[in-house]
């Protein structure tokens, strides 16, 4: 537990020492809310979701998108540590490399959830209407948290396997855009072509967005159980792969 806390604290220290990166990570989602929110102001989403404006619909989607974009870059910190040799040194200590990695992942997930919360609040400021309850917020954060664990783990696996910034850039571009545009983050699945809607239904981002949106817009939790179960399964598998990769890295560093 102390090891988890020590690595968690180190990750936060490094985040705080790079305020430009942290600030910039807010700029992109705010632009999405402002540009998409007002660009599609007249988009009648009420056809499929009664009494909901596009801006209301968009805000939970952009919150999830913030988590997706942030999580996919989680491995960049590991690559910096690999390049300085610091990761090898961390893994050469008696601490379990899996626990060391989990400390970093935990800090990243908490940061991403905090960012998503701030983006949600900014959505309220620009006029989005959400059905805010403690249960709804909790359910939303839980779904986004599981999604963050899964994609932070995947990003870290790519980082540890490749050890190259270029690979991370390729990964971010290859994964983020397809995942975003085949999800219900920006458009309801019912308004997509059938083939795209079919992809959307198995997209983990859709699971997180729909669970979060149902909870935040309507106070409904019907889709929550299935979404959490599937996200937990994806998260567990990817976290296990990340754990194994970290342990393997120690043996051959």
């Amino acid at each position: 537990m102390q090891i988890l806390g020590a690595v968690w604290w180190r990750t936060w220290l490094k985040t705080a020492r790079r305020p430009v990166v942290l600030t910039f990570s807010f700029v992109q989602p705010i632009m999405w809310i402002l540009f998409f929110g007002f660009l599609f102001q007249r988009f009648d989403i009420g056809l499929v979701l009664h009494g909901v404006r596009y801006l209301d619909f968009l805000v939970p989607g952009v919150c999830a998108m913030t988590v997706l974009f942030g999580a996919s870059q989680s491995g960049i910190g590991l690559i910096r540590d690999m390049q300085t040799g610091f990761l090898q040194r961390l893994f050469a200590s008696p601490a379990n490399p899996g626990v060391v990695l989990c400390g970093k992942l935990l800090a990243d997930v908490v940061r991403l959830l905090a960012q998503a919360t701030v983006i949600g609040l900014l959505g309220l400021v620009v006029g989005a209407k959400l059905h805010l309850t403690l249960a709804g917020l909790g359910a939303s954060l839980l779904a986004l948290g599981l999604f963050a664990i899964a994609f932070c783990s995947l990003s870290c696996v790519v980082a540890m396997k490749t050890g190259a910034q270029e690979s991370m850039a390729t990964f971010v571009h290859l994964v983020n855009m397809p995942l975003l545009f085949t999800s219900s983050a920006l458009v309801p699945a019912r308004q997509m072509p059938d083939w795209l809607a079919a992809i959307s239904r198995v997209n983990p981002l859709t699971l997180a967005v729909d669970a979060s949106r149902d909870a935040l817009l309507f106070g409904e939790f019907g889709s929550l159980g299935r979404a959490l179960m599937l996200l937990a399964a994806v998260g567990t598998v990817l976290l296990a792969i990340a754990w194994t990769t970290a342990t393997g890295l120690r043996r051959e560093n």
Partner: protein
Amino acid sequence: MLTSEYGTDAETAVVARALTKRYANGVVALDQLDLDIGRAGIMALIGNNGSGKTTLLKLLAGLLTPNSGSAQTLGCDLATQPISLRRRIGYVSQAVELDPEMTGQETLSLFATLHGLPRATRHARVAALAESFGLAEHLPRSVSTYSGGLRQRLHLALGVLHEPELLLLDEPTAALDPAGRSFVWHLLQRFRNEGRTVVVASHDLAEVSQHCQGIALLHRGRALATGSPAEVVAAHASWRLEIEMARLVEDNDDLPLQLRSLSGVKEVTACGRQLVANFAERDAAAVERVKDQVIRHLASRSESLLGYRLHPPDLASAYFNLTGAPIEETVPRARAEPGKGTNGRHKSK
């Protein structure tokens, strides 16, 4: 201290038997290596780049897995107990692996936690260590502002933070100024005096001769000689005469062969303007006679000399006699073929 019996005991820190490490690219870094390292001493691994020093240290630290063979460190089998061993071993890599964005204090505190130091004593241990490494006043600063020497000190401090029984160091003095080197060797002596075992890879034979109780001479993944520096020198080294010629000695020059044919000369190598003649004789008077004979032969050929110097037997000579390559050469193994000359030096036997 070196032992010859298989198995670790109270006096043996490391026992390696037929240890082999082959990397994925096919390079055989360790080839059936046998080595014993006694406790409470400083053992130096000497050898050229690619001789297997770093691989051996990483294997002993549990950071690499051997392809075959066995190694016991501090009585534990490396294959089955690598985690418990880590608390008893300190490994200091050749590269200084630090996070430039962290302060010295944060770095030491983080690793104190990772090594499982009790919370109650952690702060005191970090403070004491910083004091003894001359880091105390620098701890609040970011590592990115440290000089090279300060970084090396912090790097070393991390290796001994948990007071390991066995300290493995990979060329710790390579990038240091004389004061820094002196500091490191003083530290290692202190460790030895505390009853700990130190294994250090080094290229500096003078330092090794001065500070180490044992050496293992590695070449192509094998230990060619082990013992105290004096024992290795006595067994394998010879007197040598270094001659600085006024002209370049070409590869096809017959001069080395002619000198080799003189009585008492074991082998001759040439590198640029330098000729090195290794003598078979060990008696000082006999060595003087062979030297005079060599100089007379050069005079008979009307060779112009810039100077010459007679060296008593030392580790460099032992290394050369055992491997056929000078210790300072840095040619990768794939290109270094014994007998054909390396680093521009050719040898006449």
